[in-house]
């Protein structure tokens, strides 16, 4: 069974500092990987996705993520965060076989302070 682990439930960071949100997955087959962001009282919005090709994926709002097959990771990074980046971030995975179901991690709350 596929699973997604986000080890950090909360990441505090100062404005303009870099940030990395960690995501690891478990799967014996190829996967599609996603990062979603959820602002307070809003639905989930896609930040970026990895389907195939280049392992470095760039998304909206200056975020990027790198797919590392050997470490089964898909960490999200941003070189300089803004107050407005404060939100919940979810990593998600689909196994590329048979029925494709999107499975989410437990989320990481990014808290950006001035």
């Amino acid at each position, binding site marked *: 069974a596929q699973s997604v682990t986000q080890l950090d439930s909360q990441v505090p960071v100062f404005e303009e500092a870099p940030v990395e949100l960690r995501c690891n997955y478990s799967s014996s087959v190829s996967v599609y990987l996603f990062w979603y962001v959820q602002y307070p009282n809003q639905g989930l919005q896609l930040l970026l996705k990895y389907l195939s090709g280049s392992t470095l994926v760039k998304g909206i709002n200056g975020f990027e993520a790198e797919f590392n097959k050997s470490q089964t990771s898909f960490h999200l990074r941003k070189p300089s965060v803004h107050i407005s980046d404060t939100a919940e971030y979810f990593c998600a995975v689909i196994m590329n076989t048979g029925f494709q179901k999107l499975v989410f*991690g437990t*989320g990481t709350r990014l808290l950006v302070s001035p």
Partner: protein
Amino acid sequence: EAGVAQSPRYKIIEKRQSVAFWCNPISGHATLYWYQQILGQGPKLLIQFQNNGVVDDSQLPKDRFSAERLKGVDSTLKIQPAKLEDSAVYLCASSLDLGAGANVLTFGAGSRLTVL
């Protein structure tokens, strides 16, 4: 394009009462999903429709939850009777087709249920 519409946004009920949530997906999207997001957890898929047929409902508590998508467009999720542990945000999403890997899910704002 218009997004995924959900209503009501908020609902408070007593345990053992019933509640229904409505979702209207993006026009032309064949696949519709209902997710349950309990506070502090990631969203969990309850049911997935392809047009008006059920693709996966393996995690739907069928003794109390039901969902339908009769005309392959909008959908209703019902809970009867509600339990305290059903307090959550119910997210509806849609995508163009199956194979959600390439067809990205678009989510609605969610319906927040509080069961007292």
